[in-house]
């Protein structure tokens, strides 16, 4: 179970997140949607611990909010940031191996290469020389290597062509089913969100203002929130 209670983030005098509450069940995919600047990436960064926050972040009943990010990864969180941020000068294999550090394993599980066969093919190529879609796969593979319980994805479709976005949706559902993984994904592409999410939260000005289950989703209302 992944519980977030009264999460607040401020950049100096500017309050960006206002008491976010969120509860996600094991194996559930929750999408957080909203326009640019509404606080989605800040939410993701505060959950993984790369920016300071106040409030409670519980992973299986343990509050990780006071821990540095590497300790949160040990507790089961994994993060795929906006813009991928793979280690450009390191090979594909080495990138994935960085995710293995917390597990103590020395070999990359076969499952990762079966999900992303292109990474197997390019394992000796530098991460920085892959295409955007391949880098996104690499960033997800790196996160999965840490054997997480909860996967946080920040705008995974950014800069990726539509056919690859569809493949990404299939892979995410596949990963969820294989590992009973909890996934929280921030997105602006509604078609992708409707394809993958079990539940959709709308974020506006640092607050969750709307919540829908997939089967009862009010597409028009959500599209209105996303309209510029």
């Amino acid at each position, binding site marked *: 179970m992944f519980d977030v209670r009264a999460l607040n983030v401020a950049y100096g005098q500017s309050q960006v997140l206002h008491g976010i509450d969120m509860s996600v069940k094991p194996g559930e995919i929750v999408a957080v949607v909203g326009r640019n600047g509404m606080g989605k990436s800040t939410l993701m960064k505060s959950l993984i611990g790369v920016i300071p926050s106040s409030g409670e972040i519980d992973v299986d009943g343990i509050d990780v909010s006071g821990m540095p990010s590497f300790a949160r990864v040990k507790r089961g969180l994994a993060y795929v940031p906006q813009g991928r*941020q793979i280690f450009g000068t390191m090979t594909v294999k080495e990138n994935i191996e*960085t995710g293995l*550090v*917390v597990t103590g394993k020395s070999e990359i599980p076969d499952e990762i290469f079966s999900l992303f066969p292109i990474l197997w093919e390019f394992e000796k190529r530098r991460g920085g020389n892959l295409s955007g879609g391949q880098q996104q796969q690499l960033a997800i593979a790196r996160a999965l290597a840490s054997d997480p319980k909860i996967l946080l994805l920040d705008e995974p479709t950014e800069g990726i062509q539509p056919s690859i976005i569809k493949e990404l949706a299939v892979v995410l559902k596949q990963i969820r089913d294989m590992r009973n993984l909890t996934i929280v994904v921030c997105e602006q592409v509604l078609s992708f969100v409707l394809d993958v999410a079990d539940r959709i939260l709308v974020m506006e000005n640092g607050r969750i203002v709307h919540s829908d289950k997939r089967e009862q989703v009010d597409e028009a209302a959500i599209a209105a929130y996303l309209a510029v």
Partner: protein
Amino acid sequence: MFGYSFGELGSIFAMQAFSGLILFSVFLLMALGLAIIFGQMGVINMAHGEFMILGAYMTYLTSHIFQAYLPGLFSIYFFVAMVVAFIVSGAAGLAVEWILIRHLYRRPLDTLLATWGLSLMMQQAFRTIFGAREVGVELPQWMMGALPVTDVIEVQINGLFVMALTLLITGGVALLMFRSRWGLQVRAVVTNRVMSGAVGIDTRRIDRLTFGLGCGIAGIAGAAFTMIGSTGPTSGQLYIVDTFLVVVFGGAQSLIGTIASAFTISQSQSTLEFFLSGSMAKVLTLLVVIGLLMLRPQGLFVLKVRK
């Protein structure tokens, strides 16, 4: 040319090239530690030369202990001294990182000032403990003398030993950086510190170990330094500028760059010193390096990746 025959010039170049190789070895051993600390962590460690001298003094102490208590094993004292130098300089580095450096990450000017202050404190400590005069170590019998290559060219055995040691340490560092789990983590932290933490790497622990290793290698450089010169409290200062030059010129994050840069600078300095004065050789070398850095500010070797 220059009043020498071609044969004489050949011999001069060969001898200067060999003395350049010894200088290259010292530069490289010094620069390896600095390349790890400055290149990988971005910390400007002005006390790096003093960590080297700490290693040199440890070698001096070890040689005296062997002379006094284990004279039968004197011929192998240097190998023990190297280990002692690595452990003492590395442990001192770990302590300095914990007490001082970790509070100053991402504040390069403060780090520069703090480590400069540290270098002065270490120099004074050396002066108080070992005296202001330079000290030298006694070489074991097998390290003395020279091997004749031709009728006019001889190579010093201690110089050859320092070169072999440099090869060994450089290979070891390369293996550690590119074949070990620790090296993988160091390279990840260098590339993207925040993201490294977010994939599960304890960046603070890596910083501490990296600083310790860099200082430990400086200690080994100090041990090697005693084979070719005498050691004084301020000897480290003689090499620190050259060593920074080597790291910056080679490309701060490139091990190959550090090696190529140490080779180029030492060889040009050594060859020019024969034909010009030592100062003029240094001036010319600096001018060439500055000129090249204006054309390639990132240094000789930079990894290119798709943005």
